[in-house]
């Protein structure tokens, strides 16, 4: 049993270390705005003619825009604006591409924004959902795997420590501090204003 738990800890670490590092480090970047400030994105804007005579299906139009205008990234849900234009966003870590199709459907304004290092980290942290092409589906799978591994690391780590000979008071103190703080904060948030 002890060996199995050790193996689970080791195998999940060997396979998912890169994803664990990127998810936690990007989280650190996101909450440390002073260390990693966001800057105004560098934008490139161009207007092109838009020719689409296919079905009005938004997914088909999105695929056409992405392919025809060489836009990279994961498609976000299209949105119809109040002025009649339709906005298609394609997002990938560090770069956001936006295609605004005019209300008459004859032109498209394309804005490609370079979001910099912080934007890249936010992207790695926030790209979710099983859609948007094989790369993003695969990313989402590893996102889930790393999330599950995070729970596995927490539990197997405690079990490994508890069953080892090096179990001591400092370990109990660390364990108690982490779980104690969590419990107190949850109770506070549930009961206080």
């Amino acid at each position, binding site marked *: 049993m002890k060996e199995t738990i050790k193996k689970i800890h*080791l*195998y999940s*670490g*060997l*396979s*998912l*270390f*890169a*994803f*664990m590092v990127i*998810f*936690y*480090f990007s*989280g*650190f970047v*996101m*909450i440390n705005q002073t260390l990693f400030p966001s800057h105004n994105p560098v934008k490139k804007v161009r207007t092109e003619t838009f020719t689409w005579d296919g079905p009005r299906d938004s997914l088909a139009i999105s695929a056409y825009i992405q392919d025809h205008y060489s836009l*990279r*990234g*994961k498609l976000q849900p299209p949105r119809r604006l109040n002025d009649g234009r339709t906005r298609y966003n394609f997002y*990938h*870590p*560090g770069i956001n591409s936006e295609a605004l199709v005019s209300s008459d459907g004859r032109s498209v304004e394309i804005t490609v924004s370079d979001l910099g290092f912080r934007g*890249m980290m936010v992207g*790695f942290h926030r790209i*979710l*959902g099983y859609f948007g092409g094989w*790369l*993003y589906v*695969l*990313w989402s799978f*590893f*996102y*889930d795997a*790393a*999330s*599950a*591994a*995070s*729970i596995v690391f*927490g539990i197997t*780590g405690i079990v490994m*420590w508890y069953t080892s000979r*090096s179990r001591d008071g*400092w*370990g109990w103190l*660390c*364990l108690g*501090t*982490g*779980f104690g*703080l*969590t419990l107190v*904060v*949850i109770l*506070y*948030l*549930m009961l*206080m*204003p």
Partner: protein
Amino acid sequence: MRKVISRIHVYGGLLCASYLIIFGYSSLQFNHHFPFQNWGERQVDWQASLSVQETPNDTLLAERVRDGLGLAGWIPWWRFQRAGDNSFTFEVGGPGKGYEISVNPERTHASVKETRRSFFQIYTGLHALGHYPNASSLVKIWPIYTQICALFVVFAAVSGLYFWGCQLDKKRLEWALFVIIGLGGVLMMFYMRIWG
């Protein structure tokens, strides 16, 4: 040196085990939206007398009302609503509770719809609970803890690989996992950044 790294790995892991579980659960929730997430959410209506100075600035007025009622949380400006009779409605969003507050035109009375978040919502909220207005000192400790844990995981990954690297009898399966999925993941990130 190896002993020191090992101790940091173990004690840091024990300290951060709770956050690792929170991070894992909440990340899965963000990707899958579990149906039981809202179980136990409750709404309570209450009223209170107020003494708030009027101002044409909606943000300032909302802050005065929130502070006057002794509540904590962010105030989303896009939810401000001033009616024709000058009554004012806004929301306060806290990690444990949310409030929809209606203030009468004289600014002497508030009707509050309080939403008490479920255990799972609060648990998920700990994923990235930062500073929020009128937060208690206790809650201000949480962001420090999360930052320590975020850095610890990076350290744990590197030190874990170091311990594995020091082992003499590495198995084929371990190499396969490390090279195909581990290093493959690094390549995938580069691919996604450059061509994704």
